[in-house]
């Protein structure tokens, strides 16, 4: 495969920035959760790209041919863990968003500020 350089890293950082943009400038709570999900996807992509080695094969063969290099297995294990953790946090965030909506009758973040000052 041809070398495509740092493009995956750039895409990962773009996803993080998009997520931060949603968190900073979007007023809807669900949209902000989507922002958190985007940051998380970006970080996951970053981790997997870290472990990639050109011409490598997947690190899942027990009897891999020794002449071929494997891509690093650790970042992949990390990413798996991170994906599962991400599901838990997203679910919790969304359930709190639903609760907030039930109590406040709105999802507008600028109206959900009883705790201030």
């Amino acid at each position: 495969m041809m070398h495509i350089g740092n493009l995956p890293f750039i895409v990962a950082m773009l996803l993080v920035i998009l997520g931060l943009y949603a968190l900073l400038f979007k007023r809807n709570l669900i949209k902000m959760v989507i922002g958190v999900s985007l940051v998380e996807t970006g970080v996951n992509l970053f981790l997997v790209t870290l472990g990639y080695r050109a011409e490598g094969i997947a690190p899942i063969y027990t009897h891999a041919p020794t002449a071929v290099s494997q891509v690093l297995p650790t970042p992949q294990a990390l990413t798996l863990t991170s994906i599962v953790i991400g599901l838990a946090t997203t679910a919790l965030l969304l359930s709190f968003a639903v609760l907030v909506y039930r109590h406040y009758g709105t999802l507008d973040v600028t109206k959900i500020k009883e705790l201030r000052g």
Partner: protein
Amino acid sequence: MNALTTHAPILIIATPLLGAFAAPLIGKLGWTVRTAFAGAIAALTGCFAGLLAATLYTGGGAPIVYVLGGRLPLPSGLAAPIRIMLEVDGLSAFMALITALVAVVAVLYSVSYWKERSGGALYDSLLFLLIAGVFGLVLTGDMFNFFVFLEITSVAACGLIGFRTWRKRSSEAAFKVMALYTLSGLFVLLAVGLLYGQYGGLNIAYLATNLGGTMVDRVALALLIAGLAMKAGAVPMHMWAPEAYGEAPAPVSMVLVANSQASLYALFRVLFTLYGQSLSAAAVGWILIVLALLTIFVGVTMALVQKDLKRLIAFGAVSQIGYMLLAVGVGFAVLATRPDFGLTAITGGIFHMINDVACIGLLFLAAGAAIRASGSRDLHSMGGLAHSLKGTTVLFAVGAFALAGVPPFNGFASKLLIYESTFQLSPVLAVIAVLASIVLLAVFVRAFQAVFLGPRLIARPEPVPWPMVASMVVLAAVVIGFGLFPGFFIDKIVTPAANALWSGQGDYIRAVMGG
């Protein structure tokens, strides 16, 4: 060395984890069995933490390494640094003792805290999950595991903050705190990824031997400082803290303070053990000092004008984080140049951790008892509780005086160390710290006057059940004991912890890497 001592590090984490997952099942057997089970788990965890600390301190403070899944013993069989391990040095053991204290007290307090809508087994489950996460944070020797435990504490903490789903503000606080915790966790993960990408390892000791202060290292350090300082609640990233502490149930507020301190511990670990001298320590130290001064000042002044009792104490808790940051920041800034007072500063900061958790915990618990008894948390409508809640009144006063650094309580002992050492670096630091302590005393005089003094504004407050009083008495005993015999406790438990930061980097690395 018998098996129990050998496996103590993992047992400390595994026992509350077992409690977390078994609690819903045990809960089916009724209130008595559930309570006994929770108490047993907490007591067992406390015993393991004490055993671990005793082993470490009697062993001369050399780090204990516990390897999971490795067949060969480290460091002789060091084949690849990719391996999950727990590494316990003086500071980890000290933090484990703090967490154990908090766990036991929180479980005891929770026995009778819930009134009409019972906390139930789910509450126990989340509480143990949070405790297991905090233990994991302070014991792990591996950056990725650190991230996993960080997320465990985030999820459990926010579950507990939003536990009272019928309260409007709890849901709001839980959502905000969860979003911020997740974000900071992801940035920490990004930093871990950056470090892994450069050095191909996740072990703290392994990374510490390789870090060279490149640009990527600096970016990773910035991500770690920002993420961990936010989870610790440093100003100006503290806004979640009063909401979290204020809206969580009283015992959980105390555990959340310990959770923040665990993040602070992680920050210190990253600075002293992971990075150490490999980059400009003075600049990083001054970043911490500036954050600390902001934290102390804003926390105290905001506490002065709060109308909600728990929010007031929460801002007090925020300001106390500043004292630890200040002390350790001073220690880090002078790590290489001025050893004469750097170690004193770090000793003061570390000692203040356990003092803070005892005083703030005592205040949160006493406030929880007062709020539970009077059904109100508004300073304007409370008053005169001293007529009926005599014990709680005395305990709140002890906590307030100790937190404000009034002698002879424990807050004074640690703050004295902080004042005297920061004065050596710059008198301005010490002056601000002393002034903030005085304002803090004023804050708590106001809270005390509003809640406990005056005529009976609340006709018939509910009495405080004995488990709640007992748990507060335990904390008060810590406050007074540490206040009357500070030299003894500093000698026995604080100095090993401070030395682990000050000069323990080599030992920490050698325990894993050998050589």
